[in-house]
């Protein structure tokens, strides 16, 4: 019997980091959130989970400048079913770095983020998590849960 931890404020189940990593590993589309001119900017990107990190690609001279200025970014992945009103969301927060010149092309290729070879401007970015948080919508009728203190 798995004990569930419920966030009292939101009524959502709190997911463990292991569960979050499993969910990230089976997803390929996430939303990168940065701040530009004081306003949140959010857009979908194709990604792979690589161990505990997130890798996505972008084009040079563009989004990367924004990443550097922002320091840390948020990366959100979710799957929510409009029919059953159930689903989950995982948010990874941390610094993002351009890794294109620092890592072996072979290890980047293994991530299969796009048809190979990449375009001339393609850059790869790795997000190193400082925090991984996940929540799931569960029914309160579920018999076994405990309140998060």
């Amino acid at each position: 019997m798995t004990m569930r931890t419920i966030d009292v404020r939101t009524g959502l189940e709190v997911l463990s980091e292991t569960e979050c990593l499993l969910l990230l590993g089976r997803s390929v589309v996430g939303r990168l959130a940065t701040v530009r001119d004081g306003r949140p900017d959010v857009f979908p990107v194709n990604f792979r989970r690589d161990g505990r990190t997130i890798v996505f690609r972008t084009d040079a001279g563009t989004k990367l400048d924004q990443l550097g200025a922002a320091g840390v970014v948020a990366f959100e992945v979710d799957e929510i079913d409009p029919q059953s009103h159930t689903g989950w969301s995982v948010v990874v927060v941390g610094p993002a770095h351009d890794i294109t010149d620092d890592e072996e092309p072979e290890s980047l290729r293994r991530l299969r983020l796009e048809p190979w070879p990449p375009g001339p401007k393609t850059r790869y970015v790795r997000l190193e998590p400082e925090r991984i948080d996940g929540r799931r919508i569960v029914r309160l009728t579920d018999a076994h849960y405990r309140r998060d203190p």
Partner: protein
Amino acid sequence: MTDPRGAGAGDEELTPTECFRLLGTQVVGRVAVAEPGAAPLVVPVNFVLRERRIIFRTAYGTTFRAAVLGERPVSFQVDEIDLDREVGWSVLVQGRASEVDGWEASGLQLQAWAPGPKPHVVEVLCDQVSGRRLHGNDLAGWRSGSAHL
């Protein structure tokens, strides 16, 4: 290529009218709030759209409450990405959020999908909307294990 998202040549900017038409086809989006010195907060919510106002229920976390009461910038992102057909779009509304009074009389169906109490009804008022269509070139290879090998 000067596009901040570094997207591919298949991209197509959407008009504000088209952005709001597409927003109205969806029921789940992501609210994002800038936090000074930290990564933005990103939370998925189910919402309704009324005349370019995005309305949803919330239990107010600390950050979001501060953003609403302090009239800080809030963004709302919605997308739809079909990896089988390699088509998709993403829309970003940037503006401010405020509490909605008297919503009970409005006839809005505002039940939150998450189970906890959500005593506050909030609307995001649009200052600026932007959106783009994603086409085959952008989305090719997004799916895990597609024909890269």
